[in-house]
């Protein structure tokens, strides 16, 4: 094990990108004080389907695909010696989801992990990353979706209560390719994810979906950035969050940048938060920066509210008790996005966990 020594621009909490994050709870991943763990916890579950390869490459054989000014990504790039590379070969359609699992680590050191997902020309696949147990993880996932390819990436944060997870999921989406991301964050002490998209060719599209449910003491931050730098690309963002319990805190930032060259851009982002009890805090900040007026559409909406009394009355007037009525409403609230996963077993598991969290929170 080694300790990081390079002096990056360490966040102080005054920066726009860090102003919501409780830095003291990051386990030193942001300021170089974390001990770098010597582990590779990402594994491929099940047998490899045709056209799927998963291997560990040395960093010299897997150069970075993207730039980042994020301090933790910078430290990951310094610390990581290897890169886990998942490739879907050109023209292959993988029918069953490819499942990657992160096994738990320890809380005394932090894993600084680099991952690359490469979906070659006209390939099509669903990749599910399951994160469970307790660990400290700093993770940079770079995704390249080649021309005409189609990737659905499901990222499940079903962490244990002690986990600190800071990461970026950066997708480069090329001509006529589609990237669909579903991020579910329902476990962990602190989770800070940067789902970012960079369009590399016209006709590209992305859908960024997310759900998060924070209970007492949990901090979950999701900070999108969609970079429209080519013409005729389309982006949709839809994140839904619920909060219950004292000191539950969520942050959603939706940055969309439409550059001068990005004529014909079509973008819409939406964030809805449901506050299930007092003492919880949901921050929601959509940002749209536009350098050209020649676009199809650009919009955003953000709402934060409590249970709708009329919905609860309607359900209860049919004999359903208050706690079951609330449970139905919360399930309904999340189901729009959970159903996008398209995997019945996982959807049921996530809904059950949400039910349990709701029960525990007494909301």
């Amino acid at each position, binding site marked *: 094990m080694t300790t990081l020594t390079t002096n990056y621009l360490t966040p102080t909490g005054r920066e726009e990108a860090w102003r919501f994050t409780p830095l003291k709870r990051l386990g030193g991943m942001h300021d170089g004080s974390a001990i770098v763990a010597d582990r590779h916890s990402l594994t491929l579950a099940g047998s490899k389907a045709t056209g799927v390869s998963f291997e560990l490459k040395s960093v010299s054989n897997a150069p970075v695909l993207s730039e980042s000014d994020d301090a933790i990504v910078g430290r990951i790039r310094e610390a990581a010696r290897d890169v886990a590379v998942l490739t879907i070969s050109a023209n292959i359609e993988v029918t069953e989801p490819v499942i990657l699992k992160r096994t738990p680590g320890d809380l005394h050191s932090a894993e600084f992990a680099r991952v690359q997902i490469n979906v070659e020309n006209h390939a099509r696949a669903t990749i599910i990353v399951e994160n469970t147990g307790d660990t400290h993880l700093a993770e940079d996932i770079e995704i390249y979706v080649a021309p005409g390819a189609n990737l659905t990436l499901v990222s499940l944060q079903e962490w244990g209560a002690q986990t600190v997870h800071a990461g970026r999921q950066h997708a480069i989406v090329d001509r006529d390719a589609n990237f669909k991301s579903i991020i579910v964050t329902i476990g962990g002490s602190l989770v800070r994810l940067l789902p970012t998209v960079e369009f590399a060719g016209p006709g590209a599209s992305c859908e960024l979906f997310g759900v998060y449910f924070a209970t007492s003491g949990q901090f979950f931050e999701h900070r999108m950035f969609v970079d429209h730098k080519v013409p005729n690309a389309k982006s949709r963002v839809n994140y839904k969050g619920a909060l219950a319990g004292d000191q539950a805190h969520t942050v959603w930032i939706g940055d969309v940048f439409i550059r001068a060259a990005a004529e014909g851009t079509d973008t819409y982002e939406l964030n809805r938060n449901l506050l299930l009890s007092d003492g919880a805090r949901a921050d929601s900040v959509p940002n749209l920066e536009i350098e050209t007026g020649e676009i199809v559409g650009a919009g955003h909406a953000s709402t934060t509210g409590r249970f*709708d*009394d*009329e*919905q609860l*009355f*309607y*359900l*209860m*007037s*049919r*004999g*359903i*008790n*208050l706690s*079951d*009525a609330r449970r*139905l*409403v919360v*399930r*309904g*609230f*999340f*189901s*729009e996005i959970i159903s996008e996963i398209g995997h019945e077993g996982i959807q049921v598991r996530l809904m059950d966990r949400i039910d349990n969290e709701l029960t525990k929170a007494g909301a």
Partner: protein
Amino acid sequence: MSTLEIRGLKVSVDTENGAVEILKGVDLTIKSGETHAIMGPNGSGKSTLAYSIAGHPKYNITAGTVTLDGADVLEMTVDERAKAGLFLAMQYPVEVPGVSVSNFLRTAVTALRGEAPKLRTWVGEVKDAMEALNMDPSFAQRNVNEGFSGGEKKRHEIMQLELLKPKIAILDETDSGLDVDALRIVSEGVNRAKETNNIGVVLITHYTRILRYIQPDFVHVFANGKIVEEGGPELADKLEANGYAEYVSA
């Protein structure tokens, strides 16, 4: 045989200008198998009566009693009232996003019967109820009231009336927004539910046209927060001819 007794019921709502009394002493008795039409002009308090009996939190009961077979309804939570046998078909049924009609109905019937219905018979029950109301089978997979037309919302309410089998049902302007065909289908549903389960029905309406399909045993004229005249079906004919003018000006 069940009896819903409303005695001296006074209800107010909170407004910016303080509490405003809407119901000013309502007396009404409904027994199993009876159909009562409550007719009156807009703003007379008809819907307030319906929602107060169902237990909507917006309405404050300031005086009076409501009992179902002697049990104090006003002491019950909203779901307990439904379990006791009360049902309110709403004028504006509420959307519940992400909750399918099928899941909603199963949850409700499980709560009311105290156990989950046997899957095979339940699927058949729902299918029959939907067919009887001319509803497409895909309806069960849609989210509760979300994107429903006015007519679909009302059919959905009456489908619940048939499936949930209450003792006393209050239908709040179930006829509003229905075309002639839908009115006939919905009315047949009410008559069927009433005959099958001997339900006592309170039909709240502004217009007499639904009374051509659902025969009332009693007609009550509601104005200014109370019942101002009562009679048999012939009273509805008089209202059809003369309107509410004499009650409003009185």
